[in-house]
Protein backbone atom coordinates (compact mmCIF):
# COMPACT_ATOMS: atom_id res chain seq x y z
CA UNK A 1 0.00 0.00 0.00
CA UNK A 2 1.41 3.38 -0.96
CA UNK A 3 1.27 6.34 1.38
CA UNK A 4 2.82 9.75 1.59
CA UNK A 5 6.43 9.58 2.78
CA UNK A 6 5.82 12.33 5.35
CA UNK A 7 3.28 10.32 7.38
CA UNK A 8 5.02 8.87 10.42
CA UNK A 9 4.60 5.19 11.19
CA UNK A 10 2.41 4.55 14.23
CA UNK A 11 2.60 0.77 14.29
CA UNK A 12 5.30 -1.50 12.97
CA UNK A 13 5.17 -5.27 13.15
CA UNK A 14 8.10 -7.34 11.94
CA UNK A 15 7.93 -11.10 11.56
CA UNK A 16 5.90 -11.50 14.73
CA UNK A 17 5.30 -15.06 15.83
CA UNK A 18 3.37 -16.15 18.86
CA UNK A 19 2.68 -19.64 20.12
CA UNK A 20 0.69 -20.88 23.09
CA UNK A 21 1.34 -24.02 25.05
CA UNK A 22 -1.64 -25.80 26.51
CA UNK A 23 -2.44 -29.10 28.14
CA UNK A 24 -3.90 -31.74 25.88
CA UNK A 25 -6.72 -33.59 27.56
CA UNK A 26 -7.96 -36.89 26.27
CA UNK A 27 -11.62 -37.73 26.48
CA UNK A 28 -13.18 -39.44 29.49
CA UNK A 29 -12.14 -40.39 33.00
CA UNK A 30 -8.98 -42.13 31.81
CA UNK A 31 -7.91 -38.93 30.11
CA UNK A 32 -8.51 -36.98 33.32
CA UNK A 33 -6.38 -39.41 35.35
CA UNK A 34 -3.65 -39.35 32.72
CA UNK A 35 -3.65 -35.57 32.91
CA UNK A 36 -3.13 -35.79 36.65
CA UNK A 37 0.01 -37.94 36.47
CA UNK A 38 1.42 -37.46 32.98
CA UNK A 39 0.20 -34.25 31.34
CA UNK A 40 0.85 -33.83 27.65
CA UNK A 41 1.27 -30.40 26.13
CA UNK A 42 0.46 -29.10 22.68
CA UNK A 43 1.87 -25.97 21.12
CA UNK A 44 -0.47 -23.90 19.02
CA UNK A 45 1.04 -21.31 16.70
CA UNK A 46 -1.37 -18.39 16.72
CA UNK A 47 0.83 -16.09 14.61
CA UNK A 48 3.38 -17.39 12.11
CA UNK A 49 5.45 -14.39 11.09
CA UNK A 50 3.23 -11.36 10.63
CA UNK A 51 4.69 -8.12 9.25
CA UNK A 52 3.11 -4.77 8.38
CA UNK A 53 3.33 -1.05 9.01
CA UNK A 54 0.49 1.32 9.79
CA UNK A 55 0.96 5.07 9.33
CA UNK A 56 -0.35 7.47 11.96
CA UNK A 57 -4.02 8.36 11.60
CA UNK A 58 -4.97 5.36 9.49
CA UNK A 59 -8.14 3.34 10.13
CA UNK A 60 -7.19 -0.27 9.45
CA UNK A 61 -9.40 -3.33 9.49
CA UNK A 62 -7.96 -6.56 10.80
CA UNK A 63 -10.07 -9.42 9.56
CA UNK A 64 -9.99 -13.17 9.65
CA UNK A 65 -12.05 -16.16 10.74
CA UNK A 66 -12.32 -17.15 14.40
CA UNK A 67 -8.94 -18.32 15.67
CA UNK A 68 -7.04 -16.63 12.82
CA UNK A 69 -4.86 -14.69 15.28
CA UNK A 70 -6.48 -11.23 15.23
CA UNK A 71 -7.03 -10.87 18.98
CA UNK A 72 -3.57 -12.32 19.70
CA UNK A 73 -2.10 -9.63 17.47
CA UNK A 74 -4.07 -6.92 19.27
CA UNK A 75 -2.90 -8.26 22.62
CA UNK A 76 0.71 -8.05 21.43
CA UNK A 77 0.25 -4.53 20.08
CA UNK A 78 -1.42 -3.34 23.26
CA UNK A 79 1.35 -4.84 25.39
CA UNK A 80 -0.70 -7.48 27.17
CA UNK A 81 1.43 -10.35 25.90
CA UNK A 82 4.87 -10.46 24.26
CA UNK A 83 5.54 -12.04 20.86
CA UNK A 84 7.41 -15.36 20.94
CA UNK A 85 9.73 -13.88 18.31
CA UNK A 86 9.84 -10.84 16.05
CA UNK A 87 9.30 -7.24 17.05
CA UNK A 88 6.34 -4.95 17.47
CA UNK A 89 6.53 -1.23 17.90
CA UNK A 90 3.69 1.17 18.68
CA UNK A 91 4.39 4.91 18.59
CA UNK A 92 8.06 4.01 18.59
CA UNK A 93 7.77 2.09 21.85
CA UNK A 94 7.96 -1.59 22.70
CA UNK A 95 4.39 -2.35 23.84
CA UNK A 96 5.36 -5.10 26.28
CA UNK A 97 7.47 -2.72 28.34
CA UNK A 98 4.12 -1.14 29.19
CA UNK A 99 5.60 2.17 30.24
CA UNK A 100 3.19 4.70 31.72
CA UNK A 101 3.77 6.94 28.69
CA UNK A 102 2.73 4.07 26.40
CA UNK A 103 -0.34 3.18 28.45
CA UNK A 104 -1.50 6.80 28.40
CA UNK A 105 -1.43 6.87 24.62
CA UNK A 106 -3.27 3.69 23.76
CA UNK A 107 -6.67 2.24 24.40
CA UNK A 108 -8.44 -1.03 23.75
CA UNK A 109 -12.11 -1.87 23.52
CA UNK A 110 -13.07 -5.52 23.66
CA UNK A 111 -16.63 -6.11 22.57
CA UNK A 112 -16.88 -9.23 24.67
CA UNK A 113 -15.37 -7.84 27.85
CA UNK A 114 -16.74 -5.01 29.95
CA UNK A 115 -14.07 -2.58 31.11
CA UNK A 116 -16.26 -0.19 33.06
CA UNK A 117 -17.43 -0.93 36.58
CA UNK A 118 -20.57 -3.00 36.35
CA UNK A 119 -22.39 -1.69 39.43
CA UNK A 120 -21.57 1.99 39.06
CA UNK A 121 -23.13 4.59 36.78
CA UNK A 122 -20.98 5.47 33.77
CA UNK A 123 -20.40 9.00 35.06
CA UNK A 124 -18.57 7.63 38.13
CA UNK A 125 -16.36 5.43 35.95
CA UNK A 126 -15.59 8.33 33.62
CA UNK A 127 -14.64 10.54 36.55
CA UNK A 128 -12.19 7.89 37.74
CA UNK A 129 -10.74 7.65 34.23
CA UNK A 130 -10.33 11.44 34.28
CA UNK A 131 -8.22 11.11 37.43
CA UNK A 132 -6.23 8.15 36.05
CA UNK A 133 -5.37 9.91 32.81
CA UNK A 134 -4.83 13.38 34.33
CA UNK A 135 -7.46 15.08 32.19
CA UNK A 136 -8.06 18.66 33.40
CA UNK A 137 -11.63 18.98 34.73
CA UNK A 138 -12.74 21.64 32.21
CA UNK A 139 -11.40 19.67 29.25
CA UNK A 140 -12.98 16.49 30.62
CA UNK A 141 -16.40 18.11 31.03
CA UNK A 142 -16.39 19.56 27.51
CA UNK A 143 -15.13 16.33 25.97
CA UNK A 144 -17.64 14.18 27.83
CA UNK A 145 -20.51 16.46 26.77
CA UNK A 146 -19.39 16.21 23.16
CA UNK A 147 -18.90 12.45 23.14
CA UNK A 148 -22.13 11.62 24.96
CA UNK A 149 -24.20 13.87 22.73
CA UNK A 150 -22.59 12.44 19.59
CA UNK A 151 -23.49 8.95 20.76
CA UNK A 152 -26.83 10.01 22.19
CA UNK A 153 -26.24 8.67 25.70
CA UNK A 154 -26.22 11.88 27.79
CA UNK A 155 -29.40 10.88 29.62
CA UNK A 156 -27.92 7.52 30.58
CA UNK A 157 -24.82 8.80 32.35
CA UNK A 158 -26.32 8.28 35.80
CA UNK A 159 -27.63 4.79 35.10
CA UNK A 160 -25.76 1.75 36.43
CA UNK A 161 -23.74 0.14 33.64
CA UNK A 162 -25.35 -3.24 34.23
CA UNK A 163 -28.81 -1.75 33.64
CA UNK A 164 -27.91 -0.48 30.15
CA UNK A 165 -28.70 -2.34 26.95
CA UNK A 166 -25.80 -3.97 25.09
CA UNK A 167 -25.68 -1.13 22.56
CA UNK A 168 -25.78 1.57 25.23
CA UNK A 169 -23.10 -0.20 27.24
CA UNK A 170 -20.86 -0.50 24.21
CA UNK A 171 -21.23 3.22 23.51
CA UNK A 172 -20.18 3.91 27.10
CA UNK A 173 -17.22 1.54 26.70
CA UNK A 174 -16.10 3.40 23.59
CA UNK A 175 -16.43 6.78 25.36
CA UNK A 176 -14.42 5.41 28.30
CA UNK A 177 -11.74 4.22 25.89
CA UNK A 178 -11.29 7.51 24.04
CA UNK A 179 -11.92 10.03 26.80
CA UNK A 180 -8.18 10.61 27.16
CA UNK A 181 -7.76 10.95 23.38
CA UNK A 182 -5.36 8.05 22.86
CA UNK A 183 -3.16 8.18 19.79
CA UNK A 184 -3.73 4.50 19.06
CA UNK A 185 -7.04 2.69 19.57
CA UNK A 186 -7.59 -1.04 19.27
CA UNK A 187 -11.21 -2.02 18.72
CA UNK A 188 -11.89 -5.73 19.06
CA UNK A 189 -15.35 -6.45 17.66
CA UNK A 190 -17.01 -3.33 19.08
CA UNK A 191 -20.29 -3.90 17.23
CA UNK A 192 -20.74 -7.53 18.25
CA UNK A 193 -24.34 -8.19 19.19
CA UNK A 194 -25.49 -4.65 18.36
CA UNK A 195 -28.59 -3.98 16.29
CA UNK A 196 -28.37 -2.24 12.89
CA UNK A 197 -29.07 1.25 14.26
CA UNK A 198 -26.66 1.02 17.17
CA UNK A 199 -23.90 -0.35 14.90
CA UNK A 200 -24.48 2.43 12.41
CA UNK A 201 -24.36 5.12 15.10
CA UNK A 202 -21.14 3.70 16.51
CA UNK A 203 -19.55 3.46 13.08
CA UNK A 204 -20.48 7.05 12.28
CA UNK A 205 -19.02 8.16 15.59
CA UNK A 206 -15.75 6.28 15.05
CA UNK A 207 -15.42 7.71 11.57
CA UNK A 208 -15.82 11.27 12.87
CA UNK A 209 -13.43 10.64 15.74
CA UNK A 210 -10.78 9.26 13.42
CA UNK A 211 -11.09 12.23 11.06
CA UNK A 212 -11.18 14.84 13.81
CA UNK A 213 -8.54 13.53 16.21
CA UNK A 214 -6.34 11.69 13.74
CA UNK A 215 -6.04 8.64 15.99
CA UNK A 216 -4.61 5.47 14.51
CA UNK A 217 -7.31 2.82 14.79
CA UNK A 218 -7.17 -0.92 14.28
CA UNK A 219 -10.58 -2.54 14.08
CA UNK A 220 -11.32 -6.24 14.13
CA UNK A 221 -14.83 -7.22 13.17
CA UNK A 222 -16.80 -9.99 11.54
CA UNK A 223 -19.27 -7.40 10.35
CA UNK A 224 -18.14 -6.42 6.88
CA UNK A 225 -20.25 -3.26 6.99
CA UNK A 226 -17.92 -2.03 9.76
CA UNK A 227 -14.88 -2.76 7.64
CA UNK A 228 -16.14 -1.43 4.32
CA UNK A 229 -17.54 1.77 5.84
CA UNK A 230 -14.60 2.63 8.07
CA UNK A 231 -11.37 1.12 6.85
CA UNK A 232 -9.25 2.45 4.05
CA UNK A 233 -7.05 -0.57 4.42
CA UNK A 234 -7.59 -4.17 5.46
CA UNK A 235 -5.19 -6.78 6.71
CA UNK A 236 -6.60 -10.24 6.20
CA UNK A 237 -5.19 -12.93 8.46
CA UNK A 238 -5.66 -16.63 8.00
CA UNK A 239 -4.16 -19.24 10.30
CA UNK A 240 -1.63 -16.79 11.68
CA UNK A 241 -0.33 -15.38 8.42
CA UNK A 242 -1.21 -12.25 6.45
CA UNK A 243 -3.07 -13.23 3.28
CA UNK A 244 -3.90 -9.76 2.05
CA UNK A 245 -2.83 -6.26 3.00
CA UNK A 246 -4.30 -3.40 1.02
CA UNK A 247 -7.41 -1.46 0.09
CA UNK A 248 -10.75 -3.29 0.37
CA UNK A 249 -11.67 -2.27 -3.19
CA UNK A 250 -8.58 -3.94 -4.63
CA UNK A 251 -9.55 -7.16 -2.91
CA UNK A 252 -13.11 -7.11 -4.23
CA UNK A 253 -11.90 -6.36 -7.73
CA UNK A 254 -9.28 -9.11 -7.78
CA UNK A 255 -10.70 -12.11 -9.62
CA UNK A 256 -14.43 -12.23 -9.13
CA UNK A 257 -17.36 -10.08 -10.03
CA UNK A 258 -21.11 -10.40 -9.92
CA UNK A 259 -23.52 -10.56 -12.83
CA UNK A 260 -26.66 -8.64 -12.00
CA UNK A 261 -29.46 -10.17 -14.04
CA UNK A 262 -33.19 -9.52 -14.47
CA UNK A 263 -35.18 -12.18 -16.30
CA UNK A 264 -38.65 -12.17 -17.82
CA UNK A 265 -39.23 -15.63 -16.42
CA UNK A 266 -38.92 -16.50 -12.70
CA UNK A 267 -36.67 -19.57 -12.38
CA UNK A 268 -35.89 -20.84 -8.89
CA UNK A 269 -32.40 -20.20 -7.53
CA UNK A 270 -31.47 -23.85 -7.90
CA UNK A 271 -32.71 -23.96 -11.53
CA UNK A 272 -30.58 -20.93 -12.32
CA UNK A 273 -27.56 -22.33 -10.49
CA UNK A 274 -27.93 -25.65 -12.29
CA UNK A 275 -28.23 -23.98 -15.69
CA UNK A 276 -25.19 -21.74 -15.23
CA UNK A 277 -23.04 -23.66 -12.78
CA UNK A 278 -22.60 -20.48 -10.72
CA UNK A 279 -23.58 -19.57 -7.13
CA UNK A 280 -26.76 -17.49 -7.28
CA UNK A 281 -28.60 -15.22 -4.88
CA UNK A 282 -31.82 -13.27 -5.30
CA UNK A 283 -31.67 -9.65 -4.15
CA UNK A 284 -35.19 -8.33 -4.78
CA UNK A 285 -38.62 -9.75 -5.36
CA UNK A 286 -40.90 -6.80 -5.83
CA UNK A 287 -44.28 -7.91 -7.23
CA UNK A 288 -44.19 -5.20 -9.90
CA UNK A 289 -40.62 -5.87 -10.89
CA UNK A 290 -38.88 -9.02 -12.07
CA UNK A 291 -36.55 -10.64 -9.54
CA UNK A 292 -32.92 -9.53 -9.68
CA UNK A 293 -30.37 -12.32 -9.40
CA UNK A 294 -26.72 -12.00 -8.50
CA UNK A 295 -24.39 -14.62 -9.97
CA UNK A 296 -20.81 -14.73 -8.73
CA UNK A 297 -18.56 -15.34 -11.68
CA UNK A 298 -14.80 -15.43 -12.46
CA UNK A 299 -13.82 -12.09 -14.03
CA UNK A 300 -12.09 -13.81 -16.95
CA UNK A 301 -15.23 -15.72 -17.97
CA UNK A 302 -17.83 -12.95 -17.87
CA UNK A 303 -18.49 -13.02 -21.63
CA UNK A 304 -18.97 -16.78 -21.63
CA UNK A 305 -21.60 -16.60 -18.86
CA UNK A 306 -23.33 -13.68 -20.54
CA UNK A 307 -23.83 -15.83 -23.61
CA UNK A 308 -24.95 -18.81 -21.56
CA UNK A 309 -27.63 -16.75 -19.78
CA UNK A 310 -28.91 -15.15 -22.97
CA UNK A 311 -29.10 -18.55 -24.63
CA UNK A 312 -31.03 -20.22 -21.84
CA UNK A 313 -33.28 -17.46 -20.42
CA UNK A 314 -35.22 -14.43 -21.57
CA UNK A 315 -33.00 -11.70 -20.19
CA UNK A 316 -34.64 -8.33 -19.40
CA UNK A 317 -31.51 -6.63 -18.12
CA UNK A 318 -27.93 -7.61 -17.38
CA UNK A 319 -24.93 -5.86 -15.87
CA UNK A 320 -21.69 -6.35 -13.92
CA UNK A 321 -20.97 -5.25 -10.36
CA UNK A 322 -18.09 -5.80 -7.97
CA UNK A 323 -18.38 -8.75 -5.59
CA UNK A 324 -19.25 -7.69 -2.05
CA UNK A 325 -16.45 -7.66 0.50
CA UNK A 326 -18.37 -10.14 2.59
CA UNK A 327 -18.62 -12.58 -0.31
CA UNK A 328 -14.91 -12.28 -1.15
CA UNK A 329 -13.87 -12.76 2.48
CA UNK A 330 -16.21 -15.72 2.81
CA UNK A 331 -14.59 -17.34 -0.22
CA UNK A 332 -11.11 -16.76 1.17
CA UNK A 333 -12.08 -18.30 4.53
CA UNK A 334 -13.42 -21.37 2.75
CA UNK A 335 -10.33 -21.94 0.61
Amino acid at each position, binding site marked *: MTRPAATPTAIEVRDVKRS*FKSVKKEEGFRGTMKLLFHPEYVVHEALKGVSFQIPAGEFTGLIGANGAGK*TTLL*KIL*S*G*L*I*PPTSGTASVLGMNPFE*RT*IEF*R*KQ*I*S*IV*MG*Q*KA*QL*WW*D*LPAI*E*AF*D*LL*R*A*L*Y*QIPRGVYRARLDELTSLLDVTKLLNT*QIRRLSLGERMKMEVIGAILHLPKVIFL*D*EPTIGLDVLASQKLRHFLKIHNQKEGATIILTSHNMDDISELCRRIILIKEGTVLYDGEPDTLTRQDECQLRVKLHTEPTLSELALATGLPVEAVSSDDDDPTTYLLTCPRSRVAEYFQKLIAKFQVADIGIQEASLERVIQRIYQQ
Partner: protein
Amino acid sequence: MKAQLKSGFSWMLEWRLATIRNGMKDAIAYRGDFIVGLVGSAVVPVAIQLMLWNAVFKNNPESLFGGMSRSQLLAYTWTSLLFTQIRGGDYDFGLIEMIRTGTLSNYMLRPVGVVEFIFYQGIGEKLLTAGVCMCLGLVATFFTPMAVTNLILAILLAILGNIIHYLFGAALASVAFYWENAFAVLMVKNMVVSLLCGEVIPLTLVPEKWTFIWKSLPFYLYVFGPSQVALGIWDHRMWAIQMGIGCSWVLVFWILLKLSWGFSTKRYQGIGG
Protein backbone atom coordinates in the same frame (compact mmCIF):
# COMPACT_ATOMS: atom_id res chain seq x y z
CA MET B 1 10.37 21.86 37.19
CA LYS B 2 8.71 22.73 40.51
CA ALA B 3 5.33 23.03 38.79
CA GLN B 4 5.87 19.66 37.08
CA LEU B 5 6.71 18.01 40.40
CA LYS B 6 3.65 19.58 42.01
CA SER B 7 1.40 18.40 39.19
CA GLY B 8 2.93 14.90 39.36
CA PHE B 9 2.36 14.76 43.11
CA SER B 10 -1.19 16.04 42.86
CA TRP B 11 -1.93 13.39 40.19
CA MET B 12 -0.45 10.64 42.38
CA LEU B 13 -2.76 11.69 45.17
CA GLU B 14 -5.78 12.38 43.00
CA TRP B 15 -6.04 9.02 41.26
CA ARG B 16 -5.57 7.17 44.51
CA LEU B 17 -8.30 9.14 46.24
CA ALA B 18 -10.58 8.81 43.21
CA THR B 19 -10.04 5.04 43.20
CA ILE B 20 -10.77 4.76 46.92
CA ARG B 21 -13.94 6.83 46.45
CA ASN B 22 -14.98 4.57 43.60
CA GLY B 23 -14.36 1.51 45.76
CA MET B 24 -16.57 3.00 48.48
CA LYS B 25 -19.35 3.77 46.02
CA ASP B 26 -19.07 0.28 44.58
CA ALA B 27 -19.25 -1.24 48.07
CA ILE B 28 -22.46 0.54 48.99
CA ALA B 29 -24.10 0.31 45.58
CA TYR B 30 -26.17 -2.40 47.25
CA ARG B 31 -26.78 -1.17 50.84
CA GLY B 32 -28.56 -4.32 51.95
CA ASP B 33 -25.68 -6.53 50.84
CA PHE B 34 -23.16 -4.28 52.56
CA ILE B 35 -25.00 -4.33 55.90
CA VAL B 36 -25.77 -8.05 55.82
CA GLY B 37 -22.14 -8.75 54.89
CA LEU B 38 -20.90 -6.61 57.78
CA VAL B 39 -23.24 -7.90 60.45
CA GLY B 40 -23.86 -11.40 59.15
CA SER B 41 -20.22 -12.38 58.85
CA ALA B 42 -19.71 -11.51 62.53
CA VAL B 43 -22.49 -13.71 63.89
CA VAL B 44 -20.91 -17.15 63.48
CA PRO B 45 -17.42 -16.41 64.92
CA VAL B 46 -18.95 -14.62 67.91
CA ALA B 47 -21.49 -17.38 68.54
CA ILE B 48 -18.73 -20.02 68.45
CA GLN B 49 -16.54 -18.10 70.88
CA LEU B 50 -19.38 -17.35 73.29
CA MET B 51 -20.44 -21.00 73.34
CA LEU B 52 -16.83 -22.07 73.81
CA TRP B 53 -16.16 -19.74 76.77
CA ASN B 54 -19.46 -20.61 78.41
CA ALA B 55 -18.57 -24.30 78.20
CA VAL B 56 -15.05 -23.70 79.54
CA PHE B 57 -16.21 -21.65 82.53
CA LYS B 58 -19.42 -23.53 83.22
CA ASN B 59 -18.20 -25.47 86.27
CA ASN B 60 -15.75 -22.94 87.62
CA PRO B 61 -16.65 -19.35 86.67
CA GLU B 62 -13.82 -17.86 88.72
CA SER B 63 -10.98 -19.86 87.16
CA LEU B 64 -8.45 -18.51 84.63
CA PHE B 65 -8.03 -19.93 81.15
CA GLY B 66 -4.70 -19.23 79.49
CA GLY B 67 -4.21 -16.52 82.06
CA MET B 68 -7.53 -14.85 81.16
CA SER B 69 -10.72 -14.66 83.18
CA ARG B 70 -14.18 -15.20 81.72
CA SER B 71 -14.90 -11.48 81.58
CA GLN B 72 -11.55 -10.78 79.88
CA LEU B 73 -12.23 -13.44 77.28
CA LEU B 74 -15.71 -12.07 76.63
CA ALA B 75 -14.30 -8.53 76.35
CA TYR B 76 -11.73 -9.87 73.87
CA THR B 77 -14.42 -11.63 71.86
CA TRP B 78 -16.52 -8.47 71.47
CA THR B 79 -13.53 -6.20 70.83
CA SER B 80 -11.86 -8.49 68.32
CA LEU B 81 -15.11 -8.52 66.39
CA LEU B 82 -14.53 -4.91 65.31
CA PHE B 83 -11.10 -5.71 63.91
CA THR B 84 -12.11 -8.98 62.28
CA GLN B 85 -14.37 -6.91 60.04
CA ILE B 86 -11.52 -4.57 59.08
CA ARG B 87 -9.00 -7.33 58.23
CA GLY B 88 -9.91 -9.62 55.32
CA GLY B 89 -10.88 -8.01 52.09
CA ASP B 90 -9.89 -11.04 50.06
CA TYR B 91 -9.25 -8.99 46.93
CA ASP B 92 -6.57 -11.59 46.23
CA PHE B 93 -9.35 -14.03 45.24
CA GLY B 94 -10.51 -11.37 42.79
CA LEU B 95 -6.99 -11.09 41.39
CA ILE B 96 -6.80 -14.83 40.75
CA GLU B 97 -10.17 -14.78 39.03
CA MET B 98 -9.02 -11.89 36.85
CA ILE B 99 -5.79 -13.68 35.88
CA ARG B 100 -7.72 -16.87 35.14
CA THR B 101 -10.41 -15.27 33.00
CA GLY B 102 -8.27 -12.60 31.35
CA THR B 103 -10.19 -9.65 32.82
CA LEU B 104 -6.92 -8.46 34.34
CA SER B 105 -6.25 -7.01 30.86
CA ASN B 106 -8.70 -4.19 31.70
CA TYR B 107 -6.44 -3.06 34.52
CA MET B 108 -3.04 -3.80 33.01
CA LEU B 109 -3.46 -1.14 30.36
CA ARG B 110 -4.37 1.66 32.75
CA PRO B 111 -1.49 4.08 33.39
CA VAL B 112 -1.17 3.04 37.04
CA GLY B 113 0.08 -0.06 38.85
CA VAL B 114 -2.48 -2.83 38.53
CA VAL B 115 -2.03 -4.35 42.01
CA GLU B 116 -2.05 -0.94 43.63
CA PHE B 117 -5.19 0.07 41.74
CA ILE B 118 -7.06 -3.04 42.83
CA PHE B 119 -5.93 -2.48 46.42
CA TYR B 120 -7.26 1.09 46.49
CA GLN B 121 -10.54 -0.10 45.06
CA GLY B 122 -10.80 -2.75 47.76
CA ILE B 123 -9.60 -0.61 50.65
CA GLY B 124 -12.47 1.81 49.92
CA GLU B 125 -14.90 -0.78 51.27
CA LYS B 126 -12.68 -1.57 54.24
CA LEU B 127 -12.39 2.11 55.18
CA LEU B 128 -16.17 2.31 55.23
CA THR B 129 -16.24 -0.78 57.40
CA ALA B 130 -13.60 0.76 59.66
CA GLY B 131 -15.81 3.86 59.95
CA VAL B 132 -18.80 1.76 61.00
CA CYS B 133 -16.61 -0.16 63.48
CA MET B 134 -15.30 3.12 64.85
CA CYS B 135 -18.86 4.31 65.48
CA LEU B 136 -19.78 1.02 67.15
CA GLY B 137 -16.58 1.20 69.22
CA LEU B 138 -17.34 4.78 70.26
CA VAL B 139 -20.75 3.67 71.47
CA ALA B 140 -19.04 0.86 73.38
CA THR B 141 -16.74 3.34 75.15
CA PHE B 142 -19.78 4.67 77.03
CA PHE B 143 -20.51 1.25 78.52
CA THR B 144 -17.02 -0.26 78.88
CA PRO B 145 -13.65 0.92 80.19
CA MET B 146 -12.33 1.17 76.60
CA ALA B 147 -10.66 4.57 75.97
CA VAL B 148 -11.44 6.50 72.78
CA THR B 149 -7.73 7.10 72.07
CA ASN B 150 -7.03 3.40 72.38
CA LEU B 151 -9.89 2.64 70.00
CA ILE B 152 -8.56 5.06 67.37
CA LEU B 153 -5.00 3.70 67.65
CA ALA B 154 -6.31 0.13 67.46
CA ILE B 155 -8.26 0.89 64.28
CA LEU B 156 -5.13 2.41 62.71
CA LEU B 157 -3.21 -0.77 63.55
CA ALA B 158 -6.02 -2.87 62.05
CA ILE B 159 -5.91 -0.84 58.83
CA LEU B 160 -2.15 -1.42 58.66
CA GLY B 161 -2.95 -5.11 59.14
CA ASN B 162 -5.34 -4.94 56.21
CA ILE B 163 -2.60 -3.50 54.00
CA ILE B 164 -0.20 -6.29 55.03
CA HIS B 165 -2.94 -8.85 54.39
CA TYR B 166 -3.55 -7.54 50.89
CA LEU B 167 0.12 -7.34 49.92
CA PHE B 168 0.69 -10.89 51.14
CA GLY B 169 -2.43 -12.20 49.37
CA ALA B 170 -1.64 -10.37 46.13
CA ALA B 171 1.92 -11.77 46.12
CA LEU B 172 0.50 -15.27 46.58
CA ALA B 173 -2.09 -14.63 43.86
CA SER B 174 0.74 -14.40 41.32
CA VAL B 175 0.85 -18.21 41.51
CA ALA B 176 -2.20 -18.06 39.22
CA PHE B 177 0.07 -16.93 36.36
CA TYR B 178 1.66 -20.38 36.56
CA TRP B 179 -1.21 -22.62 37.72
CA GLU B 180 -4.14 -20.66 36.26
CA ASN B 181 -6.36 -21.84 39.10
CA ALA B 182 -4.81 -21.12 42.49
CA PHE B 183 -7.77 -20.60 44.80
CA ALA B 184 -6.63 -23.48 47.04
CA VAL B 185 -3.44 -21.58 47.90
CA LEU B 186 -5.46 -18.62 49.14
CA MET B 187 -7.89 -20.82 51.04
CA VAL B 188 -5.03 -22.46 52.92
CA LYS B 189 -3.56 -19.01 53.57
CA ASN B 190 -6.90 -17.80 54.94
CA MET B 191 -7.21 -20.77 57.29
CA VAL B 192 -3.70 -20.22 58.65
CA VAL B 193 -4.32 -16.48 58.96
CA SER B 194 -7.66 -17.03 60.66
CA LEU B 195 -5.97 -19.08 63.37
CA LEU B 196 -2.89 -16.91 63.78
CA CYS B 197 -4.52 -13.49 63.67
CA GLY B 198 -6.49 -14.01 66.85
CA GLU B 199 -10.01 -13.94 65.45
CA VAL B 200 -10.80 -17.49 66.55
CA ILE B 201 -9.08 -17.45 69.94
CA PRO B 202 -6.89 -14.90 71.72
CA LEU B 203 -3.26 -15.71 70.94
CA THR B 204 -2.44 -15.68 74.68
CA LEU B 205 -4.06 -19.12 74.74
CA VAL B 206 -1.38 -20.53 72.45
CA PRO B 207 1.02 -22.73 74.50
CA GLU B 208 4.20 -20.92 75.49
CA LYS B 209 6.49 -23.08 73.36
CA TRP B 210 4.44 -22.28 70.22
CA THR B 211 4.19 -18.54 70.69
CA PHE B 212 7.22 -17.98 68.46
CA ILE B 213 5.04 -18.98 65.50
CA TRP B 214 2.55 -16.12 65.75
CA LYS B 215 5.19 -13.68 67.00
CA SER B 216 7.38 -14.26 63.96
CA LEU B 217 4.53 -13.69 61.50
CA PRO B 218 2.59 -10.45 60.87
CA PHE B 219 -0.92 -11.91 61.16
CA TYR B 220 -1.37 -11.03 64.85
CA LEU B 221 -1.38 -7.38 63.76
CA TYR B 222 -4.76 -7.92 62.07
CA VAL B 223 -6.98 -8.69 65.09
CA PHE B 224 -5.05 -9.72 68.20
CA GLY B 225 -2.79 -6.66 68.24
CA PRO B 226 -5.58 -4.09 67.74
CA SER B 227 -7.70 -5.86 70.38
CA GLN B 228 -4.84 -5.64 72.89
CA VAL B 229 -4.48 -1.92 72.17
CA ALA B 230 -8.23 -1.26 72.40
CA LEU B 231 -8.48 -3.14 75.70
CA GLY B 232 -5.56 -1.16 77.07
CA ILE B 233 -3.38 -4.27 77.56
CA TRP B 234 -0.77 -2.82 75.20
CA ASP B 235 0.18 0.76 76.05
CA HIS B 236 0.89 3.51 73.50
CA ARG B 237 4.61 2.72 73.41
CA MET B 238 3.82 -0.88 72.53
CA TRP B 239 1.39 0.38 69.87
CA ALA B 240 4.16 2.48 68.32
CA ILE B 241 6.52 -0.52 68.31
CA GLN B 242 3.86 -2.69 66.66
CA MET B 243 3.19 0.00 64.05
CA GLY B 244 6.94 -0.01 63.32
CA ILE B 245 6.94 -3.79 62.99
CA GLY B 246 3.85 -3.57 60.78
CA CYS B 247 5.50 -1.01 58.49
CA SER B 248 8.53 -3.30 58.16
CA TRP B 249 6.21 -6.13 57.09
CA VAL B 250 4.59 -3.80 54.56
CA LEU B 251 8.03 -3.16 53.08
CA VAL B 252 8.89 -6.88 53.00
CA PHE B 253 5.63 -7.87 51.30
CA TRP B 254 5.79 -4.90 48.93
CA ILE B 255 9.20 -6.10 47.69
CA LEU B 256 7.89 -9.67 47.48
CA LEU B 257 4.89 -8.44 45.52
CA LYS B 258 7.00 -6.42 43.08
CA LEU B 259 9.28 -9.39 42.47
CA SER B 260 6.54 -11.98 42.10
CA TRP B 261 4.41 -9.86 39.76
CA GLY B 262 7.46 -8.59 37.87
CA PHE B 263 8.39 -12.14 36.95
CA SER B 264 5.00 -13.72 36.59
CA THR B 265 3.12 -11.15 34.48
CA LYS B 266 5.42 -12.20 31.64
CA ARG B 267 3.43 -15.44 31.63
CA TYR B 268 0.06 -13.70 31.38
CA GLN B 269 -1.94 -14.93 28.40
CA GLY B 270 -4.98 -12.66 28.57
CA ILE B 271 -7.27 -15.61 27.93
CA GLY B 272 -10.59 -14.97 26.25
CA GLY B 273 -11.38 -13.16 23.04
